[in-house]
């Protein structure tokens, strides 16, 4: 890309060793805190989970040391929650994308000096409690004075309800996860050089072609990050379906709660969790690889 050969960090190549050493120290210092956190609060707990997954349930619940594969066998035997979660998370991510992308684009390119305020206004709702927000949706969508009630009046169908259906769950999901989609999109689009778009139009490209060949590639890292940040946690979501969906779907999140809290069978829950993590991990890796095929720049190659 650049004319001069670069080592990482963009410093010109100099033979001086102190410079390189300092550079390495700097890199280490930069990475150290996050690395430490990952090691102690991610790797270790996960190691515990993996160890648990091969154990058996202690008599009163919990974990007892053992080495069996039963838990994995049972997990494989019960794929339904996983499939249900996949469906829900897929639709939810799509919903977030459809709602979030135009919004992010507007904020990044059209909002002008109101950007900051609008961004803040995007998160402020989430400083109220999750539970009462969700309960408010019950009022808004409810059969009493809410949307369902209105539709009941209009159509005369006494039994019409939104709550308890997948629609209510979808609304709740998009509502809860929107910022996670919008923020990554925003930070990438905001960086977009408007002059490129202008140049493209000046050169006669149609609106759609401009979008496809200029905007989309630039937005891609944000798109990928956003969809991952939304899809993955949705796979584990269960509270929103429980409240807005009236508990009528049984998802991975519910399954884990059943295992860890109701059955107190930590080995079983751990095996299911490990299975979920592995599958998700593989999926993301494939997704990233697919998205970054043929891309030359190393920045985009990971995100």
């Amino acid at each position: 890309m650049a004319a001069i050969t670069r080592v990482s960090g963009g410093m010109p190549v100099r033979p001086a060793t102190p410079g390189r050493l300092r550079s390495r120290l700097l890199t280490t210092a930069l990475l150290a805190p996050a690395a430490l956190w990952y090691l102690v609060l991610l790797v270790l707990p996960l190691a515990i989970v993996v160890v648990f997954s091969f154990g058996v349930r202690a008599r009163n619940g919990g974990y007892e040391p053992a080495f069996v594969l039963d838990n994995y066998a049972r997990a494989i035997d019960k794929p339904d929650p996983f499939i249900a979660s996949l469906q829900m998370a897929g639709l939810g991510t799509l919903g977030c994308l459809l709602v979030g992308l135009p919004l992010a684009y507007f904020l990044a390119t059209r909002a002008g000096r109101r950007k900051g305020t609008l961004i803040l206004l995007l998160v402020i709702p989430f400083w109220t409690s999750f539970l009462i927000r969700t309960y408010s949706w019950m009022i808004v969508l409810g059969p009493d004075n809410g949307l369902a009630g209105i539709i009941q009046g209009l159509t005369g169908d006494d039994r019409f309800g939104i709550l308890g259906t997948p629609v209510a769950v979808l609304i709740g999901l998009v509502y809860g996860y929107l910022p996670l989609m919008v923020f990554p999109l925003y930070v990438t689009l905001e960086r977009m050089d408007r002059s490129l778009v202008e140049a493209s139009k000046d050169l006669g490209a149609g609106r759609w072609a401009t979008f496809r060949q200029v905007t989309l590639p630039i937005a891609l890292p944000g798109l990928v990050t956003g969809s991952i940040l939304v899809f993955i946690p949705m796979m584990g979501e269960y509270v929103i379906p429980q409240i807005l969906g009236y508990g009528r779907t049984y998802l991975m999140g519910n399954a884990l709660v059943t295992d860890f809290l109701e059955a107190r069978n930590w080995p079983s829950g751990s095996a299911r969790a490990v299975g979920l993590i592995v599958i998700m991990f593989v999926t993301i890796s494939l997704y990233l690889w697919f998205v970054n095929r043929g891309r030359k720049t190393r920045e985009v190659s990971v995100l």
Partner: protein
Amino acid sequence: MSAPAVPKERVTQLPGRRESRPFDRWSGLVEGYFRTHTFLVYLFLYLPIAIVVLFAFNDTERRVTRWDGFSVKWFGVALGDSVVQKALTNSFIVAIPNAILATLFGTMAALGLQRVGRKVRLGFDALTYTSVIVPEIVIALSTLVLFATGFDVIEASFGVKINFGHPTIIAAHVLFNTSLVLLLVRARLSGMDRTLTDASSDLFATPWRTFRQITFPQLLPAIVAGFLLSFTFSFDDYVITTFVSGPGSSTLPLFIFGQVKRGVTPETNAVATMILAFTVGMLLLAQLVFAWQARRQGRRAEGASGMAGIITEQSR
């Protein structure tokens, strides 16, 4: 991505240049669509909030889904309830340090990852994604076990007793939020204009100078976004907090979820309304202050240039 020959800032300075010069016959429609869409989204976001605020004035004893009349009594209850106040305080005590640490660690890591080889970067990425993938209850329980076991060991070896409380909650929250910030900043970095940083180092500016004057301002939107999201997550978190908290460190979500068993009262709505009023109030105040400042300095009232400028790019 190919960088333009001319830095963006110069282009937008050209006088009289308007962004929304009609390009084709669809222009008006498209612009209109964006505006409407944005408006509807904010309506969507704030509709339940409006209900939350409305029902804070509900003159009812328990039921939060039926309107029984107008009353401000629940605000009185909330202000006098020391349990709720303690919970709220705890929420802040946890969320703010968590946001600061997560933003710091995440940004540093994002920058550090620019400088390492592919293998290390992939390893780090794997960890980052894993932290996002792990379901909350799994990490919550395993972190609890880790802490409990670890504390026992430390007590046995060094006689120092560590208790569950704010530090344990903060530590647990920082994990996920660091990843969040990391991902946001990296997404931002990936699209960044490298010519400026290259030029800067060509001119032998120290890395710190380059960072401070070129990189940092361009990263600022992502950093601020990361901070906001980290704070929000921590403030609203339930599962992890439940498992790693200790006596007296219950946060607001714990209090509210606990209330559900006996019926959530409008007191919760009152608390939420007060939080909203406070934050929106501060926002307005900040806007006003910046606008006043700008006017005082004789600059054209571009409005909240300070506020918006923090979040938009400010490469000056």
